[in-house]
């Protein structure tokens, strides 16, 4: 045991220089950084996930990435960076998760987060032009994103938080982002 401890200590010392100490024990989930579909709440996620990485392996779009040791206790858990590759809701990962960390949910029951339109950044809301990239990209068009006089409005009851809208948004910084509001609900 001592050698692994010692080794880990040396390793940890190296990381502390490169990343904030608080990051080791705090969840990596934040705006546009989401858990895969069907994930159980964040307070149990890291303890139930066995880090087998099969969700990442089965993901045909390579949306799911595996965190590395720099994320401390959350190392090895899967995340989706929707700005890089969003989730296309193929629902393969939920079928193969061996521990039930990703629950078997249908496409419409997925709640990875909730899309939020920043009206100060959105071209259409500012009245500078007509863009409906997010509306076109949404897998539940006219249900999750509706147009209010051509301006996009998110329906929170329907939005699954897949991030396709964020990925499609041409504005920098993104005018529509996904907030993982469901990940931090306390479970049970």
């Amino acid at each position: 045991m001592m050698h692994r401890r010692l080794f880990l200590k040396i390793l940890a010392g190296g990381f502390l220089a490169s990343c904030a100490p608080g990051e080791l024990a705090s969840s990596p989930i934040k705006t546009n950084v989401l858990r895969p579909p069907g994930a159980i709440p964040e307070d149990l996620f890291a303890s139930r996930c066995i880090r087998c990485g099969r969700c990442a392996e089965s993901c045909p779009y390579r949306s799911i990435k595996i965190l590395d040791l720099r994320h401390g206790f959350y190392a090895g858990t899967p995340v989706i960076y929707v700005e890089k590759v969003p989730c296309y809701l193929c629902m393969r990962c939920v079928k193969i998760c061996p521990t039930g960390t990703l629950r078997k949910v249908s496409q419409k029951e997925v709640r990875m987060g909730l899309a939020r339109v920043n009206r100060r950044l959105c071209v259409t809301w500012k009245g500078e032009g007509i863009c409906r990239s997010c509306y076109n990209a949404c897998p539940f068009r006219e249900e999750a994103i509706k147009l209010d006089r051509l301006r996009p409005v998110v329906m929170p009851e329907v939005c699954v938080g897949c991030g396709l809208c964020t990925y499609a948004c041409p504005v920098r910084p993104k005018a529509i982002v996904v907030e993982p509001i469901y990940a931090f609900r306390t479970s049970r």
Partner: protein
Amino acid sequence: MSKRPKRLRYGRWRYLSLSAAFLLILITPLLNLYFHFTFIQGWYQSLGIGRLWIVSPLEGLESLLISKYLYLPSLIGMLIPILVAFYLGRVFCSWVCPISFLHETVDKIRAWLFRYHPITWRDRLVLSLRLLWVALIGEFLLSMILGFPIFVFVSPPGLVGRELMLAIIFHSFALEGFIVLAILLLHFVTRRFYCRYLCPLGGLLAFLGQKRRLKVRLKSRKCSACGICEKVCPLGLPVNRGGSYSPYCWNCGECVDYCPTGALKFYWKRSYYLKPVSVEASKARSGNPLPDE
């Protein structure tokens, strides 16, 4: 010299089995990436062959203890490795584990380059084998205190598979790969240092395999106490003093291969709870059960 071709039988088969197991986790991500062949997925943390899931018992148990949540597919997936360990002992460690494959490959390279041989090798640091239990219990206690599974992302048997998957699919390595390198470096201090003293998965499988059916039997009458078995045993078990009956033995068959007198043989204990037939009774039944050598 007539016995010569019979030697190194188990060693050959074991290396073949280890190579096949390593190839499986190497080829699976390649097939997945280039041919969308998803029938076989994962590695030795969680392996999916069609609808059959195999979950590593240590990771599954840790996840179960920490999240206090029973999930049936996970329990069923743990059943196969547990049954294998129950009947055959730690065979996963010596016949399947990719870390074992890397160790044996390193040994082959050393034998080729530096004329390394287990009989002439001397372990630099020898500790008590009980350290394995400390590793297992300490691992569970620490994860339960912290509330996070520790072993899952530094578990070397799973790590090799994950590194291979990351390298093939994402074209990157995770930092944890250095743990594998560290383990291989420790191997140059003491043979199988990590497997002997530190591996919690090995500890769990050893615990499950305490009453295993498959064991290496020592025929004391044939034994000349040459001590070769103890030298070649990757775990340094004192085989000629009953080491192969201890829970640590992982049935690799190395001692059986090297034993010059043939005193060591694999045997399958029919039932653990039946008393062995005494010599007198077997003599009475069949005229001469123990022919003279």
